């Protein structure tokens, strides 16, 4: 059979309309009842859509933001900073000599560690130096180490009054002398995105109670007497 003949044969076929009216009617009524059921779903769904889609979008944005921020500004911990500092030979040596870590701060991807002598107010042989360590946290590398030495912060009249108040808590001592003593900084502070060492004010106070003379060390930041030392009996 030629293609043309086949086409003619196919085109010649005229099928009469064969229908089953009962099926058409039944299907129509089923569709009508199902429409109402489906519509309920359409009405409920947009409410969920309105709530869930923005919530989902927000969640995705937060996750992306966290991932990006973690890539740009990874979350460093104080422990990581401490670990890097302690690996440095200079700092290791200081620690072995009797220093300790006083404070740690993180600014963006830099870490700062303040290392200073352990507190021992009346020790004769006390370590007299410490260090401020700057660390690049991305590279996990110590950038610089600045030597820190105890400093004497002059006392104001107000400081002296505070010293007196602290000593008077002991009873009724007679204060004979108040003077500033060298003190090692204990804290780091962040100022204009830069790290500064906060000087510690300490005072030595000589006082007498009865016939005995004492020397006390007062921490003016904490407003406490940190230690006392018996100096001897007062000679008449």
């Amino acid at each position, binding site marked *: 059979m030629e293609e043309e003949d086949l086409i003619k044969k196919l085109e010649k*076929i005229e*099928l009469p309309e064969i229908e*089953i009216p009962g099926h*058409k009617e039944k299907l129509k009524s089923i569709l009508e009842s199902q429409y109402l059921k489906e519509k309920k779903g359409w009405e409920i769904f947009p409410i969920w859509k309105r709530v869930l889609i923005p919530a989902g979008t927000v969640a995705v944005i937060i996750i992306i933001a966290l991932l990006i921020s973690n890539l740009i500004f990874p979350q460093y911990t104080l422990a990581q900073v401490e670990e890097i500092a302690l690996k440095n030979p200079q700092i290791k040596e200081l620690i072995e000599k009797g220093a300790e870590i006083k404070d740690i701060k993180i600014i963006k991807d830099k870490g700062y560690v303040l290392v200073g002598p352990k507190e021992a107010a009346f020790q004769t042989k006390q370590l007299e130096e410490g260090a401020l360590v700057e660390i690049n946290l991305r590279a996990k590398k110590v950038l610089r180490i600045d030597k820190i030495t105890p400093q004497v912060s002059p006392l104001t009249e107000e400081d002296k009054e505070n010293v007196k108040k602290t000593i008077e808590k002991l009873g009724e001592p007679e204060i004979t002398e108040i003077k500033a003593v060298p003190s090692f900084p204990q804290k780091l502070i962040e100022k204009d995105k830069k790290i500064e060492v906060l000087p510690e004010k300490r005072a030595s106070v000589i006082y007498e109670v009865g016939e005995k003379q004492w020397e006390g060390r007062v921490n003016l930041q904490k407003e406490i007497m940190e230690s006392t030392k018996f100096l001897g009996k007062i000679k008449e």
Partner: protein
Amino acid sequence: MDATHPPPLKEEKELVKRAQKEPEAFSELYNSNYSKIFGYVLKRVANLEIAQDITSETFLKSLKNIKKFKWKNIHFSSWLYKIASNEIANYFRKKEYKAVSLEKITEPIDFSVPLTEIIEAEEKLKRQKDFLELHQKITKLPLLYQEVIVLRFFEKKKIQEIAEILGKREGTIKSLIHRGLEKLRGLMD
């Protein structure tokens, strides 16, 4: 609405939009498309029972998805033809048909059709000897050729319409028809 002639695209677009909110508008779409779809399915499967099931499934699926339907400037019936074609393909692949959407309806459905109507339709179909003879040969062709031949010669669809229904280029449809006819010719000889 005249069932044989679809409304102009602009009107139909509005009707579909309404059908996404109003059952009456969906009924209008159903009324104007039922005969086309049932006729097409019957020409593809030549079995009244299967034709009823596939037609039911086609409209139930269209109802389920009407809310998501996006107007693409082609007749709504093209979408229905596409759904029906997919269902027919399922039937031919599995050699049986399960009207899934219909089975999912939990409420009791009385789908009993008067027997006289069935007998009458069967008689009509039996009398179409030329058609049935040709249909037997067509069903031996791969599904793609079956689709284009039935749409082109029995449904009298233009190449452009077939391309819209099957989501293919007009050139592809032309070559599918040509190759389908060649294969059919081979079966006729």
